């Protein structure tokens, strides 16, 4: 299995790392890739086992002139260890889309399965999921920015260490495997203390810096899982930005597979 092979890779990488650091030789290309993967595998491993979670999210969209528009979204997510997560997203604001909900079965590799429920028509529509690079509700977040992190989605390159938000952090370059991604690469700052993502720089298809995402106010849940209270995405090319604020985080709420189907999609509030 993929997970096993990754573990094996991590093990061998870890061994080669100790050897490398012992000799204090700069990392060659292969070793940098292995180290980048190792850090990402560790970050994922530390955020595994939460079973399910629910949260309320507020998005504040801001254009260049500073005009704001608010979206309110509720999410329910079921963690699957042998596949991508299942999630239900319910829109509350803007008012004209209230009651609209979105069901997604994500897959680490390949297209996700997605359905949209339109309450005014009482219609469930299966939608094409290749639109990963498109904006989510007019915000600076694309669909892929909001999907769960899966190790298989990227190739890696370890760039070095840097201080960020007062924390010693790894800098890891991530290259999307999916050809429909809107990015050539992302640079991710992961702190060494708890392997939390502190900042991400996104480079567009022409490899110019497009956006920067910064997380703040991390809180720990169930003595293990770290979640930020807010995040800010700034688009350097358009001057627009979007702030996310999360509230009412809950883990292990007892959600099961049966909470994610067409019926629950239609009923979700």
């Amino acid at each position, binding site marked *: 299995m993929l997970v096993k092979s990754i573990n094996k890779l991590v093990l061998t990488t870890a061994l080669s790392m100790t050897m490398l650091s012992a000799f204090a030789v700069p990392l060659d290309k292969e070793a940098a890739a292995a180290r980048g993967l190792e850090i990402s595998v560790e970050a994922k491993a530390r955020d595994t086992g939460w079973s399910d979670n629910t949260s309320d999210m507020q998005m504040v*969209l801001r*254009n260049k002139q500073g005009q704001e*528009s*608010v979206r309110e979204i509720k999410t329910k997510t079921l963690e699957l260890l042998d596949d991508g997560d299942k999630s239900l997203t319910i829109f509350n*604001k*803007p*008012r*004209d*889309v*209230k*009651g609209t909900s979105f069901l997604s079965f994500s897959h680490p590799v390949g*297209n996700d*399965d997605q359905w949209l429920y339109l309450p005014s*028509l*009482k*219609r469930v*529509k*299966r*939608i*094409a*999921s*290749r*639109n990963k*690079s*498109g*904006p989510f*509700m*007019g915000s600076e977040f694309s669909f892929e920015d909001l999907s769960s992190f899966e190790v298989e989605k990227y190739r890696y390159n370890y760039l070095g260490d840097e201080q960020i938000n007062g924390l010693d952090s790894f800098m890891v370059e991530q290259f999307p495997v999916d050809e*429909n991604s*809107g990015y050539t690469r992302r640079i991710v700052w992961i702190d060494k203390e708890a392997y939390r993502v502190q900042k991400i720089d996104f480079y567009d298809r022409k490899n110019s810096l497009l956006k920067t995402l910064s997380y703040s106010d991390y809180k720990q849940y169930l003595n293990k899982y770290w979640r930020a209270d807010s995040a800010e995405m700034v688009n350097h090319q358009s001057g627009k930005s979007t702030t996310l604020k999360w509230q009412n985080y809950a883990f292990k709420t007892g959600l099961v597979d*049966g909470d994610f*189907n*067409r*019926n*629950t999609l239609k*009923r979700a*509030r």
Partner: protein
Amino acid sequence: MKKVAYPLTKALSVLALTSTLMLMSISFIAKAEEFELSGKVGVEQRYFFNEGQFDSQLKSGQSSVYLEPEFYWSWGDGADSITFKPYYRYDGQDDERSHGDIRELSYVHAGDDWELRAGIRKEFWGVTEFQHLADVLNQTDSVEDFDGEDKLGQQMINLSLVNDWGIVDLYVLPGFRERTFTGQKGRLRGAIVVSDEHVQYESSAEENHLDGAIRWSHSVDVFDVGAYWFHGTNREPILTPVYSQSNTNQPIVLQQYYNQMDQFGVDIQATIDDWLWKFESIYRTTEQDDFWATQAGFEYTYVGVFESAADLGLLVEYGWDSRGEGDDNTPAASVQNDIYFGARLAFNDMQSSELLMGMSADLDHNAYSFIFEGNRRVGESIKVSLDIRLMQSTEPTDLLYSIREDDHMQLAVEWYF
């Protein structure tokens, strides 16, 4: 006289059904964990470019206002809920278009792998965009708009069972709703006004016939599949000219006759990368005739078109009906060999701006229609939409022939709360 499309007797029988449920639930409502009031208020102005073909039709402007609040109560962590959604439109010109309806008044209980839904509800079946063949449970509220998208609430008890092999829905549908029709002063109608008096039924139970349906739906890999069987009152009336018994300024009116039907339907969508392949087909048997009809096509989406964040969707659909186009004496199907083209541009901006263009053509004779729809959000909770519809036909048996002078523009402003 302003007319409420929900006749009192029917309203009472519905009330009997729902009030039992309401009474059962009223004690729970007191304990409701959640109550929400939302909804919309709208103002709509239509402008017709030409004078109507028939005497007494309104000249050019048609104004109306409408209100659709939604009351929602839930308890038991959302497992039980009651939704009440009344609707009323006041139209300044067409008395028949001034009408009210209970879009929804229902109780829903969700178990682990089943749901019970009872009361007045709307249920949509199908996958295609230009014609909804498979969608059969709710009656069309045709005075709302002539595209057939608006539906009247339908009384039903629906048990929904979730299995590994799909969802099975069982429906018992007590009572039937007559279709709404444009009045004498209204545009977008045929030469003879449809009367809502002396409505005839095949069933001796008339509008109280107990209808039933069973539907299976499932998602397998890229396919979303549904199949159903419906038995009961045909939602499409047969219209026959008769001498009017009441109104003297309309000597001849069309009388509605609803026969009984059995309908088998399937709807399939394959979602493959940027392509949505859609197929709907029905087989209907009635005392008058048996026929097949199919609507099929695709939707392709260009993501991030013109180097922007916008998506461009292209749609092509084809409609066929085994009854054919008929002739002057026995007009058959309105969609029998018709092709549809559409383009949808979603800007994906802060205001959710959208443009939709569509065209339909009857391949058997000269009949075309064009639609243009644009909408966007203004501020946080106002939605503005502009529609333009153009119709052209030289074939008297075609549905569009009688509305060929009814090209119009429609502006709607809706406030959501």
